[in-house]
C-alpha cells in the first residue's frame, strides 16, 4: 500500500480520526442518536457548501451564497402566506437567477468571480433588506407546519433533514458524475482551453454552474428559514466562510477539476466534528476560534491532494 494510493482517501480518514479523537475524549459524542442529530443540524450549511462545490470545481468561487440565503429567508417568510408551498419555487428561481447573473458577470464581463459574486451578494442583501422592511420576520406557525412541516421531524429515528440532504447530495452527485453538464464542468475545471477547443459552450456551462450554486444556496436558505420559522436580512450570516471551509477541507481545491460533491459531504462532516469538539471537549470560550483555525490548518494539510497541483499559489 503506497502513499499515492491512499491519498484520495485522506479526507474521510481525517474525518474518522477526528471523530474518534473526540469520541475518546468524550464517549457520549459517538452515541448514534446524538451523532444523527448533530449531522441533521449542519444540513443547511451542507446544502450551501454543496452548491458552492460547483463554483469551486470549475476553479471559481461563489461568495454570494450567504446573502442569497439571507434574501431567501426573507422571501420565504414574506410570501409564505400568499403562495403556500410554492414559495419554494420562487425561492429557488431567485437563487438560480442571482447565480446566473453572477455567472454572466464573471464570464461575459470578465469580472473575477471573487468580486462578481461578492457584489451580487451585496445586491441580494439590498433586496433582502428592502423586502423585510429591515425587520426580523417570523412565519405563521400553522402555515409553516402545513407547508413545510415535512422538512423536519423524524421517521424511524432518522431526521428528515438528513433525508433531504442525502437526496440533494445524490442529485448533485448525479449532476456532477452522470450528466453532460457535469462532464463539461470537469473538463473546464481540469483544462479549460481544451474544453473550448472541443467546441463546448464553456460560457454557458460556467454560467450554469453559478446558477446551480445559487439554487442550492436558496434551498439552504429556505430550509434554514423554515427551521427558524422566520427570516431577516442577517439570518444566514456566518454560513459563508464555513461553507468555503467545508468544500476546501473535503479536498476540492480552488484550482478546479479535483474533488467534488462527495468530498464536500466529508468536508462538512469534518467541520461539524471540529465544531462539536469545542463543546464536547470543553474548550474555553476565548480559545475556540484559535483552536478552530489550527485544527483547520492541520485538516487541510492532511486532506488536499497536491499531486495535481503543479505550482502552489
Amino acid at each position: 500500500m503506497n502513499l499515492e494510493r491512499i491519498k484520495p482517501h485522506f479526507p474521510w480518514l481525517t474525518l474518522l480520526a477526528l471523530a474518534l479523537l473526540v469520541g475518546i475524549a468524550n464517549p457520549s459524542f459517538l452515541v448514534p442518536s446524538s451523532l444523527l442529530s448533530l449531522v441533521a443540524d449542519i444540513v443547511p450549511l451542507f446544502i450551501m457548501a454543496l452548491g458552492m462545490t460547483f463554483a469551486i470545481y470549475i476553479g471559481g468561487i461563489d461568495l454570494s451564497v450567504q446573502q442569497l440565503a439571507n434574501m431567501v429567508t426573507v422571501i420565504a417568510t414574506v410570501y409564505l402566506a400568499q403562495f403556500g408551498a410554492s414559495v419554494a419555487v420562487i425561492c429557488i428561481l431567485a437563487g438560480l437567477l442571482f447565480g446566473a447573473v453572477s455567472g454572466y458577470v464573471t464570464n461575459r464581463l470578465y469580472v473575477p468571480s471573487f468580486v462578481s459574486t461578492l457584489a451580487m451578494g451585496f445586491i441580494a442583501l439590498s433586496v433582502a433588506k428592502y423586502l423585510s422592511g429591515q425587520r426580523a420576520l417570523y412565519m405563521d406557525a400553522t402555515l409553516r407546519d402545513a407547508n413545510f412541516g415535512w422538512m423536519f421531524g423524524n421517521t424511524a429515528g432518522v431526521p428528515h433533514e438528513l433525508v433531504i440532504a442525502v437526496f440533494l447530495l445524490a442529485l448533485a452527485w448525479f449532476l456532477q458524475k452522470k450528466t453532460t453538464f457535469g462532464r463539461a464542468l470537469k473538463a473546464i475545471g481540469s483544462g479549460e482551453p481544451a474544453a473550448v477547443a472541443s467546441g463546448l459552450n464553456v460560457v454557458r456551462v460556467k454560467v450554469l454552474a453559478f446558477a446551480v450554486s445559487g439554487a442550492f444556496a436558496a434551498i439552504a436558505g429556505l430550509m434554514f428559514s423554515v427551521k427558524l420559522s422566520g427570516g431577516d436580512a442577517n439570518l444566514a450570516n456566518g454560513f459563508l466562510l464555513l461553507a468555503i471551509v467545508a468544500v476546501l477541507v473535503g479536498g476540492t481545491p480552488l484550482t478546479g477539476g479535483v474533488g467534488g460533491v462527495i468530498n464536500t459531504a466529508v468536508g462538512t462532516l469534518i467541520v461539524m466534528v471540529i465544531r462539536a469538539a469545542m463543546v464536547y471537549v470543553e474548550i474555553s470560550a476565548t480559545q475556540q476560534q484559535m483552536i478552530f483555525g489550527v485544527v483547520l490548518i492541520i485538516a487541510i494539510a492532511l486532506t488536499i491532494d497536491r499531486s495535481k497541483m503543479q505550482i502552489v499559489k
Partner: protein
Amino acid sequence: MYGLRKVEKYFPGVHALRRVDFHVNRGEIVGLVGENGAGKSTLMKVIYGAYQPDAGGIFIDDKEVRFQNPRQAMENGIGMVFQEQSLIPNLTVMENIFLGYERQFVNFGVINWNAFAEAAKKQLAKVKLDIDPATITSELSFAQRQLVDLAKVLTIEDRIEGDLVILLDEPTSVLAREEVELLFGLVRGLTKRASFIFVSHRIDEVLDLSDRIYVMKDGAIVDVVNHDEVNVDSIQHKMVGREIDTEYYREQKQKPYNASEVLLSFDNVSLGTRYKDISFELHPGEVLCLVGTEGSGREAILRTVFGLEAPDSGTVTIKNEQVWHFTAEGGVWRGVGYVPRERKIEGIVGGMNVYENMTLSQMQNFSRAGTLLESNEKAFAREWIERLGIKTPSENKDCGGLSGGNQQKVVLAKWRSGGSDIILLDHPTRGLDIGAKEDVYEMIREMCDAGVGILLVADTLEEAIGLSHTILVIKDGEFQKRFDGTPGSKPSLYDLLHHMI
C-alpha cells in the same frame, strides 16, 4: 573541458539515459540531434542542472561536480536558451535579462535603474538587438524575444571567470531564415568566450553550425561525427533507425481529391492584424497546407475556421452555408474538428480519462436528456482504441498519463469518431516519435480516402511538402503563392522558403 561520463537516468518505467558519454571542448560548437523522445531534453536537463543523474558523473575540467538546481549550474558557467522561452511577459526586457541577478544594480536596497538599463543595453548589443531595455517583453516579436533570451544567457559571461557552456534548445524552430543566419553569426562570434551545445531536429542547420555532432536514439548516444566527415543520410538513418523517403509521408497513398465539391471556402477574409484577404477552397480528400513563419497568420486562419476567432471581413462558407456566427460550438456542429498545437493544454484534458476525452466534443451522442450513457461511451472508446492502436491499459486511464503520440490519437479519434469531415491539424506531429508520426500520417491518408478535407499547419517544411495536395504560402498575414503538391511535381524546400521570407 565539460563532460558527462556514463550518465544514467531513470524515470518510473523509463530508462531515459543509457550510459551517456558526452563532452564539449573549449570554444567548440557541439550539435545534438535525435528524434523527439530520443532523450535530448533529458540530457539537456541533466546538463543545466534541472535533473540529477542517477549514475555516472558530470565533470568540469576533470573535476566532478553536482548541481542541485539550475542556479548552481549557472554559477558554474552553464546556461540555457530554452525552446519554450523563459522570458516573463509582464516584465521589462532588462528585468528579464538580469532576473535573479539584480543585486549588482542595488545600492542600499535601491535599484539603480539607469545602471540597470545601461547593463542591459550592453547585453542586447551582444546579440545586436537595438531596443529600449525598458520595453515590456510581451510587446516584442517572437524573434526578438529569442534574442533577448540569448542575451540573458550571455550575462553568465560577465559573472563567471572560467569557461562557459551554453545550451541552445531548438533556437531556430520559429525563426525566419535571416534570423537564423543572424543567430548563427552571433554564436560563431561568441565561441571565443563560450562553448555551445546546439540541439535541433533540423539536421541541415546542425550540420551548418556544429564542429561535432552527437546523434541520440532511445536514450543512448549512437554516433559522434565530426563536421568534415558528416553524411546527412547516415545521420538521419541513425536518428530514425531507417530511411526517410517518400514512403515516410505515405506519398504513394496520396490520391487526387474531389475537386468538384467544396467543403470550405474563404473569400477575401481578413482578421485584424493577423491575416488579410485570404481566399482558398478546401475539397473532400484534400490536404491543404498553410506554410509560413511563426506569426504569419496560419494558426489564426485555422482558429477562424473552427470558430474561435471571428473575422472582420470576407466570407467564410462551410458546406455551402455562409458562417455568420463564429463559435467553437458552431464549428463542431458544422463538422469541423480541431487538433491544436498545444496538445496538453488544448488537445486533451489532463485529469480526464480516455473515454471522457474522446466523447467531450460529442456528448450529445452519448447521452439521453442530458444523462450520460457511460457504458456506451466506454464501448465506443474501446472500439477506437483498438482501431487506432492507442496504447493504453484501458479506457479509464487518465489521458494526461499517456505518451504524446497516444494523446494525439485520442484527439484525432475524438474528431473522426464524431463524424467531422473538415479536420484542422495544427502541428499534428509536434513532439511525437517516429512511429507515432507515421501513424498520424497514415491516419491523414485514411481520412482523405474517407472524403475528409484537411487543413494542415505542418511541423516541418518536409512534412508540409510530403503530405499536401495543395500548399499555400503565407507571409505576414498575406497570401504569397499557391503550390500544387501532386506526387512527382511537389515543390522543393527552397521554393517554399523563397516565398516565406
